[in-house]
């Protein structure tokens, strides 16, 4: 299963993102197909390659949960309509919390 997010055109650069199953932390697919928690490592894919990468992610059920496409720039920067949501997924809440609040 994938999260229901806005549809992206085949040519739109996109990353594969998901939640790490054991911790729930946000992960993205790096260029080599491994999972990363580093925003700088986000890989951009397009067309058939993107579809193949997502299909690959969907097979890794114990490792990641609910993979889906998110829009990125060609260099992997978060962009598009869901920029705020994806930035919060990447960086955490926009407000202070816990002791630092």
């Amino acid at each position: 299963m994938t999260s229901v997010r806005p549809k992206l055109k085949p040519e739109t650069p996109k990353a594969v993102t998901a939640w790490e199953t054991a911790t729930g932390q946000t992960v993205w697919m790096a260029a080599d197909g491994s999972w990363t928690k580093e925003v700088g490592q986000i890989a951009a894919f397009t067309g058939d390659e993107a579809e193949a990468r997502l299909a690959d992610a969907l097979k890794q059920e114990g490792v990641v949960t609910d993979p889906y496409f998110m829009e990125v720039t060609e260099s992997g920067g978060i962009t598009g309509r869901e920029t705020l949501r994806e930035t919060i997924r990447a960086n955490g809440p926009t407000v202070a919390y816990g002791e630092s609040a």
Partner: protein
Amino acid sequence: MYRYDEFDARIVSERVAQFRGQVNRRLSGELLEDEFKPLRLQNGVYLQLHAYMLRVAIPYGQLNGRQLRRLAVIARDYDRGYGHFTTRQNIQFNWVALKDIPDVLESLAEVEMHAIQTSGNCIRNTTSDHFAGAAKDEIMDPRPWCEIIRQWSTFHPEFAFLPRKFKIAVTGAEHDRAAIRVHDIGLHMRQRGDVVGFEVHVGGGQGRTPHLAALVNEFVPETELLDYLEAIMRVYNRFGRRDNKYKARIKILVSEIGAEEFRRLVSEEYAAQREHEKIALPPEEIARIHAYFAPPELTPASGPDAAFEALKAEDKEFARWARINLHPHKVEGHASVTISLKPVGGAAGDATDAQMMTVAHLAETYAHDDIRVSHAQNLVLPHVALKDLPAIYRELKAAGIATANESLITDMIVCPGLDYCNLANARSIPVGQAVQEVFADPDYQEDIGRLHINISGCINACGHHHVGHIGILGVDRKGEEFYQITLGGRADEKAAIGDIAGPGLKADDVPGALKRVVDTYRDLRTDKSELFIETLARLGHDPFKEALYAAD
């Protein structure tokens, strides 16, 4: 308060063991997320924006010190040092790793707590008046009935897969502090002669189609309550829609077939049930549960307390806190204390592990080991002697939880919004903080008086925006956050759904717009005793809408 018997303890610990196995199978990939999701939800585990969230049940919002300490330890050891108290009088942990959740649940079970039925399409935590058993205006204590409903509804095999989630609230005071008219079932305790019974309201709720509950029965005697509830649940289970998630709540059923027909169906089911399989709760069982909720032994004070009065005279801040955050108690010389979790600039309902420890200590030392969570996301010490208030205040102040704003404009209900929630369209917390800033002056807030602002980050309305005197709903427009304002909602015995005032506002424009609305109220009220919601009802919404959209 209620204590687990051997059966309670066993089923909770067996459930933890079962879930541990399910988590292990999920982590190994043996269970797919689609298979695991209904199992985790039945145990209170959500997958939010950037982590799992664990929602722990606090039955009718009542806790003791030992339980709150345990929540603090979990916040410290498994989360990021804080928890979030919710409008269902529960607590949520935002950052717990799935692999750790079985250990957290085991730790909760040791203090008679769990996360069962805090999610999923089942009967959720029954909520109640946070001043239950203490409030001067209370007629009967609703907690024993909440407990009876909890025992009946927990693991009830017939109601484990309802069309949609189901929420019940019970109040025993004339003034409704439990928002019963916006619940699937709202019960108002009544007395006829010697018989205790319940006025039954059905089909209220918020979300994308808000409804106020319809009065379905004016008086169901207490011995028949469970039979009557069961009849309602059966009618809902049979006729509630399962084809469309957005039309599956009982409010839609009641609204589509009409209250009259719904009442007829329930009566028919009830009559059949009474004949063949009635529960007919025995009076001794009712008495047994009531014994757990015996009031603490409090000695009525013969006159004002000297130390309390002296500190009020000498410390203006303390006097203000005592004026605003105390609620009249049944016993002379006592009060219920609201511990506000709404400091200006904070996140509504959040408490750090250290703050939870402080409240647990205060409850054990001064307040008969009784703590409540209010549906407005605050904590309450229901039974406190006035003479102990100076000491309590000093500790609360040192812990940063002595904000004097109970039911004032900065005491807002705010959902976690897009900062945490996977369903949200817009952020709630920063908007709430910005609104708090413009009303932060304590004299200004107190002059405004009781005014409830409620904020939701999406149409699911977890922040109860429909019933805020002023409601704020976050929406997404092509990637930009906008906020729709509603006016005139209320959650009490005069419950009403707010009206949308007009087009949505940009986040930056919300605080100024609300200030204009509130200042218009201050100009137009007859005097300070007329609340915002009353002025709004007297004059209509037009002057306030005009103020809302006036240019700065």
